[in-house]
């Protein structure tokens, strides 16, 4: 199973609920296209909910970084919500935990935008 991305609007924040695997191929390109599309439509505040993402490979991690950069370059911010233990580990290993703002609670995350 690849990844399914569902976007919803909470105030001026776009929450992206991701479900599945973000890996090289369909998963990573679906994520890239979704973020690109949102940026092109002027969305600047994005919260990526990874609670239901079971797996991210290095290509998927690269897409998270790329998404973070493109949203930041557009004057916005991309933050992460509800990481599984395995995804937390991946961000620790790749030292990206220091780059992303990560939250466990959606309401608290939304309040930081």
């Amino acid at each position, binding site marked *: 199973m690849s990844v399914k991305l569902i976007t919803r609007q909470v105030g001026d924040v776009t929450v992206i609920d991701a479900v599945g695997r973000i*890996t*090289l*191929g369909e998963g990573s390109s679906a994520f890239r296209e979704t973020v690109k599309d949102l940026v092109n439509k002027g969305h600047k505040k994005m919260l990526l909910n990874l609670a239901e993402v079971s797996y991210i*490979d*290095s*290509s998927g*991690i*690269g*897409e998270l*970084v*790329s998404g*973070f*950069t493109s949203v930041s370059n557009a004057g916005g911010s991309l933050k992460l919500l509800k990481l599984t233990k*395995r995804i937390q580990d*991946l961000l620790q*290993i*790749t*030292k*990206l935990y220091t*780059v992303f703002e990560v939250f466990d609670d959606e309401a608290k995350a939304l309040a930081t935008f």
Partner: protein
Amino acid sequence: MILLDQRLESSLESVDHSEQRAAALALEAGFSEEETYRLGYAVREALVNAVVHGNRYSSNKAVHFKVTRVPRGIEVSIEDQGSGFSAEMQGDALAQENLMNQSGRGLALIRAFTDELQVERTTQGGTRVILRKFLPPEAS
């Protein structure tokens, strides 16, 4: 003892296949679910390197995938028919100046998820990556 010895086409299906087969064999060998996930992850990253960067998806080039039971664990060998690369060529993905690069993290993750990593050039000029993961003393 050789558990699996296959020549795979240079495709993303081969990446999925190798991850799943290596994980199944690791479970059978007695690895925990978490360590099995880690070995599968490392195998996946090595296969992606072989298929994408080594063989560049060429239908004329194969990936040699071999899993061997070694005394205290499992050894996985992944060999491509590309023009070779070295671990050094990838640079340090974890250096501060490289953190925001889109790619280059594969080897760092393989290192983190295995006990031994060997990268060598084959006589044909491709790259052979050998990963080893060992069982904890009480399980081996």
